[in-house]
């Protein structure tokens, strides 16, 4: 493994340096039919689950075949995508915000042939590589974060939890059988790299134990004032303590004030809070992004804790199944999950989804909590 240099010389870092050029301009990558009809589209139809047709004012048509993928992809996998793009799509491909891959072709026949081709490709162990779906009133791919694969603050894994939930709802990815689109999102800690707080169903990794304090190293690894100010609840204060007979500067934590956000750990690596029994999942539900019919809204916590159960998180899959089935059975056409819950009332939501309501689901965090308590006799038995 000899080191091969591009010609970069660390002694002269500015020589021939190119900076701040940004991404390549998008118009270099548009398939010709999209370039020709840019800004001049007339309407679209979903021919069948996973296959879209867009019609230009010019009369041109483009057919898109959408397939799901694990967002974690190897170069070999991406090269296979490139091969498919070359063979079927004139060398063009795109990715969606929800980590789907879209291949575009000119005719319906080509699209259906491509759908069959994509559905035919599998990994040796048996899972699909490019399952077609993710359109319309179904369940599309789960946007998610890094989890145990690559992140330093997660309370759970992301790729694994997503895999088991998508296995559970695989049929709904490939069909249009929901009352409205149902969007599931996953974030492996409260930082929520993504927008899970506005999803129909959100899976959220969560810590439940206050940070450990690594007194021996803390002052060497952390700026104590930054660790102190990182806590939104003022639970951390500077202190001195004795380690091996020697006085060291450190911090003290008022544990009962901690709500486990982990911000202190981000500022100070000597305050880790991950823990096998303490960590797990929160389920939130009823959020949305779209302005359609009702306003965008936040997801609400409906299950305060599900333990981490790697590798297949059976309780997680079961709880989401309960929510999806109740919604799918009971909601009206076009009604998003949150709109359904608000129409029937949250007391009825818990009943229909067979979920227990616990005190952890009553908000007690700052001013917005008050606006969620009931101030009317208009409740249901």
């Amino acid at each position, binding site marked *: 493994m*000899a080191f*091969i*240099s*591009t010609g970069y010389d660390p002694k002269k870092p500015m020589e021939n340096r190119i*900076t*701040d*050029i*940004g991404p*390549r*301009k*998008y118009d270099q*990558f*548009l398939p010709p039919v999209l370039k020709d009809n840019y800004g001049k589209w007339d*309407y679209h139809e979903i021919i069948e689950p996973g296959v879209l047709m*867009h019609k230009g004012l010019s009369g041109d048509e*483009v057919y898109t075949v959408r397939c*799901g*993928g*694990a967002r*974690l*992809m190897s*170069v070999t*996998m*991406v090269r296979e995508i*490139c091969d498919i*793009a070359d063979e079927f799509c004139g*060398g063009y*491909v*795109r*990715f969606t915000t929800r980590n789907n891959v879209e291949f575009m072709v000119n005719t319906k026949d080509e699209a259906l042939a491509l759908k069959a081709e994509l559905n035919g490709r599998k990994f040796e*162990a048996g899972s699909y*590589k490019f399952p077609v779906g993710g359109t*319309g*009133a179904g369940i599309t791919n789960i946007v998610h*974060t890094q989890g*145990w*694969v*690559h992140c*330093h603050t997660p309370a759970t894994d992301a*790729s694994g939890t997503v895999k*088991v939930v998508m*296995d559970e709802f*695989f049929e709904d990815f490939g069909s*249009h*059988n929901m009352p409205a689109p149902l969007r599931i999102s996953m974030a492996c800690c409260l*930082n929520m790299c993504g927008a*899970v707080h506005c999803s129909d169903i959100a899976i959220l990794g969560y810590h439940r134990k206050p940070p450990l304090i690594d007194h021996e190293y803390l002052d060497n690894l952390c700026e104590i004032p*930054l660790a102190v100010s*990182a806590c939104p609840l003022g639970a951390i204060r500077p202190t001195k303590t004795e380690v091996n007979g020697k006085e060291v500067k450190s911090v003290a934590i008022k544990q009962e004030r901690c709500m486990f*956000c*982990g911000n202190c750990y981000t500022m100070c690596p000597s305050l880790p809070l*991950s*823990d096998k029994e303490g*960590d797990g999942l929160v389920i939130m539900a009823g*959020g949305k992004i779209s302005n359609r*019919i*009702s306003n965008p809204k936040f997801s609400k916590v409906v299950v305060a804790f599900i333990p981490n159960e*790697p590798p297949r998180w059976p309780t997680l899959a079961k709880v989401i199944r309960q929510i999806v089935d109740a919604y799918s059975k009971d909601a009206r*056409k076009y009604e998003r999950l949150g709109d359904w819950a608000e129409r029937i009332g949250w007391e009825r939501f818990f009943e229909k989804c067979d979920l227990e309501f616990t005190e952890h689901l009553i908000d007690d965090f*700052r001013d917005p909590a008050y606006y969620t308590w009931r101030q009317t006799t208009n409740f249901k038995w």
Partner: protein
Amino acid sequence: MAKHPTPLLDQLESGPWPSFVSDIKQEADHRHANPDGVEYQIPVDVCDDLLGILEMSYVDGETHWKHGGIVGVFGYGGGVIGRYCDQPEMFPGVAHFHTVRVAQPSGKYYTAEYLRALMDLWDFRGSGLTNMHGATGDLVWLGTTTPQLEEIFHTLTHDLNTDLGGSGSNLRTPADCLGQSRCEYACYDVAALCYHMTIEYQDELHRPAFPYKFKFKFDGCPNGCVASIARSDFSVIGTWKDDIRIDQDAVAAYVNGEFAPNAGAHSSRDWGKFDIVKEVVDLCPTGCMSYDGSKLNIDNKECYRCMHCINTMPRALKIGAETGASIFVGAKAPILDGAQMGSLLVPFVPVQGDYEEVTEVVENLWDWWMEEGKNRERIGETIRRMGFQKMLEVTNIKADARHVQEPRTNPYIFWKEEDVEGGWQRDVNEFRKRHQR
């Protein structure tokens, strides 16, 4: 033979959904076989060791990644995230495993040729594992070592005409929906604006100058396909001012079942015959529509453009012709003060020309936030701490009923001295002439 046994992860190879475990294993085998004779610049067993350490997390229920250190390329403060594992002796292949964020093209369109060149670079100098794409929008490359960073940057900029994305307390890589490239709903040229803003603010993207991260996201219409209103500090959402355009013949075609409602989005279930009154008119949130049995009427002045009718009958109803966008500010996830949705700041901006009407708002907000924002405070939190009125003041925007859901319910109004006739300075002796002690 796998380097590390992974009995738990192996269970994620079953089931129909694409298995990331199968993919990583396939990549591990590919690197060992090395059919193309690549002179790998980081350990050849990086994928094996990643599976090994992930298996360990599956046993321990805890992550094995440490905090990032300070790594990056010369002159940039963003684009690379340092990452080290906490079991380097057991898993030397991933002892150093830094993330590289690469700026993605608008709409995430690629040619296979360009994508292959990117993958060749990452095969050669990195783990061969990517995220397509990260949540903010960038191409994310998982795992390389420090000596490779400048080399990767050199190839990206010199040979691939591509830059790193943002990380840290910077502008993050802006992201957009696919906009006018393939959508009839896009109310402005989303890709053009996203590209313009990305290039215009490269300095802010690569050199930390802010209290915390700042995200631009661009949605072409109120359907919000990139979720800008929930997760971007500065969200531009397409809208229009004039009337929805109606094709009554196409309306009739939906009513008589010739066209599938909602573009066919409900096709796997029998919801009965399309009923325009039940499914469109009665679901209109403003009640601005009526159907007399043959003709659909919209009282456009009362419409607030939620998109439901247009989504349901895309061949009959079109967005208006006077299009532009609304600007929302301050969305964020819960850390630290709770989740915030973007708040409407500019009800309408035409999104044309040099986009000065957009950039002026951005720059006024930044000047204020850089002055007043606390360390790690998102602009949405600064606005909550200092007040919406302050934001109006620094952006020179006049208050409008559209800025609020409802007016205030408390009368604790912070009048300024200059707002009150005669000012606040008064003579107590003059007061005492009228009132005995």
